[in-house]
Every structure is written in structure tokens, then in C-alpha cells.
């Protein structure tokens, strides 16, 4: 099993507030890693460090190492534009652009400017197929993305990310704004996606983590309390706090 992302002694600060404390974790290739924990525990902050999205927030600082195929993501000379092509992100609320469905998929491809126009149709179809949205939208590719339902919009956002051919996909509670049916579609989709991509998903729902992930990490107050096989975490947690959380004592 290959380690795709290796995090060593990661600390993260919003101003004077330390949001992540000495995180060490190994993310395996072609697996789904779920991060669980109560609100404000640092799990969203953690995935924002992996594609350097925290650069957009003022007064933030990270130290330690995040090795992504031997490249240290936290180094200041890393080309974040290039990095974010290789590490995609899907957000909590679907955020399609106010453009047509096909334009949403092609948005980044067109702006990166390294793909031939001839390939555009193929990219749209492939990306939408991989996001299992193709059959629902193939007849209305030129309609606005806002004409889609919330779940379809979220799968469009996934397709949009896939179009840039990422290696890792980060997901920040991607189903928390969706109904159960839309949620289960995305969960099925994740099982397909992990064949080609490495997925890290932050989720509020322990059931979801147990259903879909291979590995689970439990965050509490900025610390990674426990990390391991999902099965072990949920059936045989080593730490008392993990046990309390998954049995519903708090959170």
C-alpha cells in the first residue's frame, strides 16, 4: 500500500489560536480516509492545509511537513496553482459557477489553457460520467447549472474537480446540505472514485464514516486522537474519548 500524503508534526494557527496540534497521519492511495469529530475540532482546517486553501485566509500560519509524493506542500515556494490542480476540493455547500453545465466542467480546463479545444466534449462527457451525472444532464448540457437539484449540483462540482485530473480529492462535509437520497448517490459515487483517486472526506456523520471509509481519524480540540482502520475505530477504539464520541456521549 502506497502512502499518498504524509503529514508530520503539523501545527496550524489562526492568529494566536492554535487550531491543529502536532498532527501525524498517513493517507493511503486509492482509499477513502474519513475525518470525524465535533464542530470546531480542526478537521476542516486540516484538509484546508492539504491544498493550501488557508492561504486565502488572512493571518494564518502552518508549520510541520505535509509530504505529497515527496513534495513538501507547506514550503513557501510551492506553486499552489499547480498543487490545486493535483489536489481537488469539494465544498460543504454546492458552489457551481453561474454558467452552463458544460461550462462548469470546462471552467478550469479552459483557464489552465493546456488542453486542445477538440478534447472539450470528451472531457465534459468523461467527467460527468465519472461523477455519475451524465445520464441525468446529457440532454441539457447548455442549461444553467442552477437548474439542477442540490445533489446534482454537488455531483457537478465533483465533475468539475475531476476535469482537472486530480490525484487527491478533498471533501469538506460534501453531503451535509443534501437529502438522504442525494447523499446515498454521492456515497456510491465515492466507492467508484476511490479506484482512481485518493479521497479524504470530512464528515459530521459517524454513520457515513463507518459506511464509506477505509480509514478513519478522530479529531478533538485540534488533536488527532486516534487514527486507523475504520473497522477498528468503530468496533474497538483504543482511546476512551474516541469511544465516548462514537457511542454518542458528546458531539
Amino acid at each position, binding site marked *: 500500500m502506497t502512502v499518498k500524503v504524509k503529514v508530520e508534526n503539523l501545527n496550524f494557527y489562526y492568529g494566536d489560536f492554535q487550531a491543529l496540534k502536532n498532527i501525524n497521519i498517513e493517507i493511503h492511495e486509492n482509499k477513502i480516509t474519513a475525518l470525524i469529530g465535533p464542530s470546531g475540532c480542526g478537521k476542516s482546517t486540516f484538509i484546508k492545509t492539504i*491544498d493550501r*486553501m488557508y492561504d*486565502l485566509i*488572512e493571518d494564518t500560519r502552518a508549520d510541520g511537513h505535509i509530504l505529497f509524493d515527496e513534495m513538501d506542500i507547506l514550503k513557501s515556494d510551492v506553486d*499552489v*496553482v*499547480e*498543487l*490545486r*490542480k*493535483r489536489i*481537488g*476540493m469539494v*465544498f460543504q*455547500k454546492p*458552489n*457551481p*459557477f*453561474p*454558467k452552463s453545465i458544460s461550462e462548469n466542467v470546462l*471552467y*478550469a480546463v479552459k*483557464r*489552465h489553457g493546456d488542453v486542445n479545444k477538440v478534447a472539450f466534449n470528451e472531457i465534459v462527457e468523461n467527467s460527468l460520467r465519472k461523477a455519475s451525472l451524465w445520464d441525468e444532464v446529457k440532454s441539457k448540457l447548455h442549461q444553467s447549472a*442552477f437548474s439542477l437539484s442540490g445533489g446534482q449540483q454537488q455531483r457537478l*462540482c465533483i465533475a*468539475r*474537480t475531476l476535469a*482537472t485530473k486530480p490525484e487527491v480529492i478533498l471533501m469538506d462535509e460534501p453531503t451535509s446540505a443534501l437529502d438522504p437520497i442525494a447523499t446515498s448517490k454521492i456515497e456510491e459515487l465515492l466507492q467508484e472514485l476511490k479506484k482512481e483517486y485518493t479521497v479524504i472526506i470530512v464528515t459530521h456523520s459517524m454513520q457515513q464514516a463507518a459506511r464509506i471509509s477505509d480509514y478513519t481519524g478522530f479529531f478533538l480540540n485540534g488533536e488527532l486522537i486516534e487514527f486507523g482502520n475504520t473497522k477498528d475505530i468503530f468496533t474497538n477504539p483504543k482511546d476512551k474519548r474516541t469511544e465516548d464520541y462514537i457511542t454518542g456521549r458528546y458531539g
Partner: protein
Amino acid sequence: MSNFKRKLKRRHLINNLFMVLLVFVISISFLVLGTLLLEIFLRGYKTLTWDFITSMPSGRASRAGILPALIGSFGVIALTALISIPIGVGTAIYLTEYADKKSKFVKLLQLNISNLAGVPAIVYGILGLAVFSQLVGLGPSLIVGAFTLSLLILPVIIVSAIEAIKAVPNSIREGSYALGVTRWKTITGVILPMATPGIMTGSILALSRAMGEAAPLIMVGAVGFVTFLPNSLLDRYSALPLIVFNWTSRPQAAFAEIAASGILVMLILLIITNLTAIIIRNKTQIRVD
């Protein structure tokens, strides 16, 4: 129970009193404006003919027209738009997307821009006279009028463009950055397209304000009476508010009438530009839910 009813009655009473007061206030402004418009219409509609629009000014009111002023106004406004919109939108993009919002300098800059929107128009006229006419040496030309009006409306354009850009949800920016799209391409790819309706509306409204300004143009040497059309950017020119101002200051009653016709032309142009702004806004508005 009776206590409830008493309070309810009192509330209804206050409610009704307040409504009467508001209706009274509204009718005052409607009445004043209505009388003014009616007066101008009654005075001016008879002399508002095609000849009036296509003739040169004249010493005799019956033969006078507004052609040079109309052309001058269009010319100045078109140039003003070409100068002020790119500069204004560029400034707004810098202040919202690039500048460090915590820096004291940027805060001072934004405060000053808002304050500049409140400076009297004549002050911009004096500035235009001193800088563009005298210092740069462009004299009393069309281009100086355009530069001066640009200064006048730039703060308004910048402020409305800043508001329009700020109204683009952050989730859209994040979505674009997360795909590895650069800042500039994020701006041109999603932020500006989404902000365009707001920018356009603000700009058109600012331009229609500039169209009605007389004071700054008088300062920089536009004239109320010319019998030729401007041929180049360095020519002298007239503008609608100036010709109206010129006519109203004459003693003959006939000139007061054609001044009213001139005002009507200006009003019609203003209504057209404002309607255009509304139509553009409604047509290009993109809803994000």
C-alpha cells in the same frame, strides 16, 4: 382580555396616524416634482420639433436649435464613459481582490473615495481647469470636459463597482481557486461576469448624472452658444445643460420657452439611460441561491 383590546386599539391608532403622516410627506414631494414637470412640459412641448433638434443655435429664438449641444453632450459623455469605467472598475478590482484589507493605507484610500463622491461638482471643474486646461495645456476642449466629468463620477463608479464585486459570494472564489485557477483568471472568469450587472447599473446612473452637470463644464470652458460641431477632441463644444443655462439667462420670453424644450430633451435622454440601466440589470442578472 380588555387590556389586550385596549393595547390593540392603541397600536392600530398609532399605525394609522403614521401612515397618514407618510402619505402627506410623499404627496409633498410628488406635488413639487409634478408641478415642475408639468410647467416645463406645458412651456416646452410646442417648440420641441425636429427642426429644434437638428438646427444650430441662433440669436432668434424661433430659429434656434440644440444640435451642437446635443452632439457635444453625447461626445463628452461617451468619452467620459471610455475614461472613467475602465479606471473605476480597475480600482475597484484592486481594492477588493488584491489590496491588503487590513492595511491602514487601503482603509484611508477607501474612506477618501467615499468622501470624494460628496465633493461639489464645481470643485472638480476648478481642478479640471487648473490641471487639464492650464497645466497640461489642453485648453477649453472636448477632451478636458470628458476628463473633468470623469473625475466627478469616478468615486461613484468605484464605490458601486466595489459593492458589486463584494456581492459575489466567497464560495464562488473558493471554488475557482480550489481548481487551481489563478487570481486574475478567477477575476475574469467568474467574479467580473457576476459583478457586471451591478457595475453597469452604477456606471450608467453615474453617467446620467454627469450628463446633467453644467457647473464643472462652465469652469473648463464649454460654451452655451456655438454654431459649429466639434470635429476633434481638441475642439470647443457645447452641452445641453449649458445651452439651457444660456437661454434661461436671456430676457426674451421666447427663449424661456425653447429652454423648456431643451430641458425636455434632457429629461427624455435621462429616462432613456436610466431605463437602459434597469433593462441591462434585469437581463444580465445571475441568481445564485
